[in-house]
């Protein structure tokens, strides 16, 4: 009986919905990396003031580039300010609970596009404004899943340096075993 109580307590406190080792958690991170890790095109030549669009040739060449993507190794629950950004119609759709910081591991996270994924070194991050070791830093909030695990709510900060980035609130839904973006809202930039 005592063991049952302990097991029950563990299940309640850790939950299976936003466990960072869950299959869904890793799927969503992998999906967002492939969706958002896109090389930035170089600007038009300085003496060419007429070009205002990216050519097909450049787009094709950018699509072939494999990037080095870092994920910030810890995730936090939403702040009070972040909660306020959730559209009202979604508030009762997700299990918004938990108040502890969690650590991520790379196990199960991969890129179909062939991007190299690493965990960010938080000590190195503090030393420089620029990221010398990778092209993008992904900074995920905790994930809040719906009861059936078919939808997920989270924030994603995407940085090219400590002085260039933005964060977006996302709601993803899973259809035909594939994640897709149902809702997104630009939150902030730096």
């Amino acid at each position, binding site marked *: 009986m005592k063991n049952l109580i302990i097991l029950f307590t563990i299940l309640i406190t850790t939950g299976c919905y936003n466990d960072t080792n869950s299959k869904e958690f890793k799927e969503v991170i992998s999906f967002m990396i492939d969706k*958002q890790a*896109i*090389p*930035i*095109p*170089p*600007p*038009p030549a*300085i003496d060419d*003031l007429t*070009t*205002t*669009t*990216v050519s097909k040739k450049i787009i094709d060449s950018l699509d072939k580039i494999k990037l080095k993507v870092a994920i910030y190794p810890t995730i936090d629950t939403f702040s009070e300010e972040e909660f306020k950004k959730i559209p009202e119609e979604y508030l009762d759709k997700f299990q918004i609970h938990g108040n502890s910081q969690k650590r991520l591991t790379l196990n199960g996270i991969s890129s179909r596009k062939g991007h190299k994924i690493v965990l960010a070194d938080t000590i190195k991050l503090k030393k420089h*404004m*620029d*990221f*010398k070791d990778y*092209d993008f830093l992904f900074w995920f909030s905790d994930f809040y899943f719906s009861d059936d695990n078919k939808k997920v709510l989270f924030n994603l900060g995407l940085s*090219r*340096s*400590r*002085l*260039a*980035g*933005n964060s*977006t609130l996302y709601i993803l839904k899973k259809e035909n075993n594939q994640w897709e*973006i149902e809702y*997104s809202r*630009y939150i902030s*930039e730096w």
Partner: protein
Amino acid sequence: MHEGIHAEIHRYVSRFESGVDPNNRERLFQLYAFYKGWADYKYDGNFNWKNEAHHYYMVENYVNKIARAVRELDKNKHHLSHYMAYGWEGLREAGYTAKRLTETQDNQNYDLQSIVESSTQICN
């Protein structure tokens, strides 16, 4: 300093659009159009395209100016090359993409910056 330049560019664009500033920074508006188009095409609107446009504009116009300003703050103790890493702060990725900064130059800049930092109290 970097954030101050962002603010100045935002101010300029806002004043130009409302007809207050007659100076036309054609290159800046070209970069705005270029990176907005890119963001609309690739990111469904969730991308800080203005930041990209600003950064490439800063790479072309402000790296030396920032370096010179920091050198002045440091009472011109060293050659300008020692302060170039400050000019590139926050702009390195854009510098690489625009092919205006190489890894060799970047490493050299860092080495020279460490000489400045070992002899001064200034911070970026």
